[in-house]
C-alpha cells in the first residue's frame, strides 16, 4: 500500500490500514462554526472594475464545461465543445475554457471536437456518480476514457467504504485508478454532501492526496448539497498543508451549484486568500459547471460595454 514518492512521515502514514487510520484521525479537527464564519467573512470582499474583469477571465479559463445527462448525445457534446473553444463568438479575446467534461462513452467525440484548441477533455469514470460497482468495472470505465484520449479523469471515491472506515480500500482504489490513468490527470471526487462533516472532508482530502490524486473535487453534482464555500475552504487548506509538507502543488475543483459570477468570484477570493496566489491557475483550480459560463460571459460583456446585455445574445449550448 506504500507510496514510494512521499516524504518519510507521510509514507509511514500509508504503511498499513491501521497507520492510515491513525494518521487521518490525527489530523486537526475542523470547527464548523469557525470555518463557516471565515467563509462568510471572505465572501464580503468587494471586487470591482479591473479586478473583476481579471477575475471573470480567470474564472472562464478555469471552467470544466460539463454535460452529464443520461440523454447526452454526440451532437450535444459537439455543441458543448464548440462553446468551449469559443465561448463568446462576438468577442474573440474571450479566453477558452479549461476542459469539457463528459461521460466516458462520449470522450472520443469530445476529443475530436476540441482537437487543436488546447481545451482538455475530462471524463467522469468509475461508475459515476454512485461509484457502486466492482473494481474491475471501474477500471474498465477508466480505460475507456483514457483510451478515447481523455486527458483528465474524474473518479468518485467509494463513500460506502469511507464511511465504514475502510480507508485502506479507498486508498488502494484511488492508487489503482491513478495507475490506470497513465498520463491523464486524476481528479478525485469526494462527494462531500454525503461525507456530511468537515472532519470527514478533511480526512477524505488527505486520503486522496496521499493516494496520488492530482485534484480533489467536491461533488458529482448529482447530490445536494454539492460544492459549498466552507467545504472548498477545508479542501484548499488541505492542498495548502500538502504543499507545506511535500512541496507539491495539487489542485481543487468545486463542482455543482456554482451558477453566478458573484459565486465564482467568491471562490477565487478563497483560492487567493486560503491556499495562495499560486493556485490561481487552471492547472490548480477548476470550476465544474454548466450554466456558470454564460453568466460569466454576460458579466464580461457588462464590464466591457458598460451596460447589461441580454441572454439572447449568448449561445445556449
Amino acid at each position, binding site marked *: 500500500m506504500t507510496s514510494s514518492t512521499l516524504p518519510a512521515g507521510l509514507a509511514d502514514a500509508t504503511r498499513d490500514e491501521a497507520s492510515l487510520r491513525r494518521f487521518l484521525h490525527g489530523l*486537526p*479537527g*475542523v*470547527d464548523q*462554526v*469557525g*470555518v463557516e*464564519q*471565515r467563509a462568510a467573512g471572505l465572501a*464580503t*470582499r*468587494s*471586487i*470591482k*472594475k*479591473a*479586478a*473583476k474583469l*481579471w*477575475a471573470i477571465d*480567470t474564472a472562464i479559463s478555469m471552467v470544466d464545461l460539463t454535460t452529464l445527462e443520461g440523454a447526452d448525445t454526440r451532437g450535444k457534446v459537439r455543441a458543448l465543445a464548440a462553446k468551449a473553444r469559443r465561448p463568446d463568438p462576438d468577442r474573440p479575446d474571450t479566453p477558452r475554457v479549461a476542459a469539457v467534461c463528459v461521460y466516458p462513452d462520449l470522450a472520443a467525440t469530445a476529443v475530436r471536437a476540441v482537437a487543436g484548441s488546447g481545451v482538455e477533455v475530462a471524463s467522469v469514470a468509475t461508475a459515476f456518480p454512485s461509484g457502486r460497482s466492482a473494481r474491475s468495472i471501474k477500471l474498465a470505465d477508466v480505460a475507456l476514457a483514457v483510451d478515447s484520449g481523455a486527458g483528465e479523469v474524474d473518479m468518485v471515491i467509494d463513500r460506502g467504504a469511507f464511511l465504514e472506515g475502510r480507508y485502506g480500500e479507498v486508498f488502494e482504489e484511488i492508487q489503482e485508478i491513478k495507475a490506470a490513468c497513465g498520463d491523464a490527470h486524476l481528479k478525485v471526487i469526494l462527494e462531500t454532501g454525503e461525507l456530511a462533516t468537515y472532519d470527514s472532508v478533511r480526512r477524505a482530502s488527505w486520503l486522496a492526496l496521499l493516494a496520488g490524486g492530482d485534484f480533489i473535487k467536491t461533488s458529482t453534482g448529482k447530490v445536494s448539497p454539492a460544492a459549498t464555500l466552507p467545504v472548498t475552504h*477545508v479542501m484548499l*487548506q488541505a492542498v*495548502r498543508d500538502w504543499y*507545506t509538507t511535500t512541496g507539491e502543488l495539487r489542485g481543487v475543483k468545486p463542482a455543482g451549484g456554482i451558477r453566478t459570477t458573484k459565486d465564482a468570484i467568491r471562490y*477565487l*477570493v478563497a483560492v*487567493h*486568500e486560503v491556499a*495562495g*496566489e499560486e493556485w*490561481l*491557475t487552471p492547472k490548480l483550480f477548476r470550476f465544474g459547471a454548466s450554466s456558470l459560463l454564460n453568466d460569466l460571459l454576460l458579466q464580461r460583456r457588462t464590464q466591457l460595454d458598460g451596460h447589461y446585455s441580454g441572454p439572447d445574445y449568448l449561445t445556449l449550448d
Partner: protein
Amino acid sequence: MPAFDYAPAPESRDIANLKPSYRPFIGGEFVTGSGEPLKTLNPATEEVLAEVGTASAADVDTAVQAARKAYERTWSRMPGAERAKYVFRIARLIQERSRELAVLESLDNGKPIRESRDADVPTAAAHFFYHAGWADKLDYAGLGPDPRPLGVAGQIIPWNFPLLMLAWKIAPALATGNTVVLKPAETTPLTALVFAEICQQAELPPGVVNIVPGAGDTGAELVNHPDIDKIAFTGSTEVGKLIQRSVAGTRKKLTLELGGKAANVVFDDAPLDQAVEGIVNGIFYNQGHVCCAGSRLLAQESVVDELLAKLRYRVSTLRLGDPLDKNTDIGAINSAEQLARIRELTESGEAEGADRWTSPCPVPERGFFFAPTVFSGVQQSMRIAREEIFGPVLSVLTFRTPDEAVAKANNTPYGLSAGIWTEKGSRILWMANQLRAGVVWANTFNRFDPAAPFGGYQESGFGREGGRTGLEAYLDA
C-alpha cells in the same frame, strides 16, 4: 499570470455628512461650549476632520443640572413601557442612519469600514433594542421587588469603539430610568454628537441625554461633580484607579471596565485552522484596540511550530490600508500617541530577546499605521507579556500541560477575557472554571451579544455591562 489585485472599493466619505464643526449637546440643544475647542483628526490621513466644541467646568455643571431636572421631572416618573418607546425609537434611528454612522466612525477612529458597518453599528442598535425590552420588566429581573434608578449617571467612554461603548453605557442607563451626561473620548467625539441628533429626532425629553466632549479635565469635572449619582468608566487602568480614588468616600456608585492582557490558549488537539482565525480575530480586530483582545497566545509546545507557520501565512494575507475601503482588514492606529506607545513596547520586546515577525504587507506613507506583528519566544517576564499594548501585536508563549496553561493564563494583573481552543469538551468546561476572566470564549473569540454580561476581574475593573446582570449597575436594588 498577474496577481489578483482587488481594485479599491472605498465607501464615499460624503455618506458621513461631515460638518466643519460640532458642538456639545446639553439640555436637548447643541450649545457653544466654553471649553477650548479641539480638532479631531482622520488617523488614516492625519487631516483635520472637524472642530469640536468642548465643555468647561461650567458646561459640565449645566449638563448635570439639566440631567437632574430631566430625571426628577420626567424620566424617572415615566412608566417603563413609555421609556421603552423612546429607547426602541433610538434603536431604529441608529439602524436608519447606519451607513452614515459607520462611515463617520471609520473616518474618526480609523477602523475598517467592514467592522464599523458589520459589527459596531449593528451591535450598538442591538444594545438599544435589547435594553428597551427590559424597561418595563425591571420588577421581574430578579434584582429585588422594586428596583429604582440611581439618578444622574456620569459616563466616560474610550476611543476604540466610540459608538458601541456609548450604546453599552446609555442604553441600560435610559432603560432603567437614569439620565446621563456622557463624555466621549477626545480623539473620537463625532459619532456621539450625531447620536445627540438622533436623540433629538427621537424627541427624547431634553436633558435625558447630554454629551460633553472634552479631554481628561472634562472627565475629571464630571467625576468630581457633587450631583452625580453614578460613574461608569471604560478606559485605561491608570485612569480607572484615579477615578476610584476620587469617588472613594462619596455616595457615588462606580463601575469600571479597564485594560486586559487576555490569554488565548491553544491545545494540541485544537481545530488549528479555526484557531488561527480566532487568534487573528482576537488580536488584529480593530487594530488590536480591544480591551478584551487575545494579546497573549498560549500554545501547547507540541503544536507551536505548526501553529506559528499557519499563523504567519494567515497574517501576511491581512490587508492593511484605507479604512473606508471595503477590502481593508486592518485600518489606522487611532492617534500618534498610541502609535508611539505601540512602537515603544515592540522595541522593548526586541530588546528583551523575543523573536519579532512583522507582516510584509505594504504600509501607507501617511497616517498612523502599524503592520501586524507577532512575537514568538516570549517569556512571562517580558514587558510584552505583561503590559497591555493595545495594538496589532501578538505575544506567543508556550505551555506543556493544562495546569501550566491555567497558571500562565491567570498570571496577570488583568482578567477581562480568555479563549480556549480544544476539541475536548470536558477540558473546555474544566478550563473555563479555572480561568479568572470575565468572559471565556471556547473555540471562538471576540463574540458579543447584548444579552451576555461583560466585565473584568482584578485590574480589569468591576461591574458588568449587558445582560440581566448589567442592569444591576444602574439600579438601586
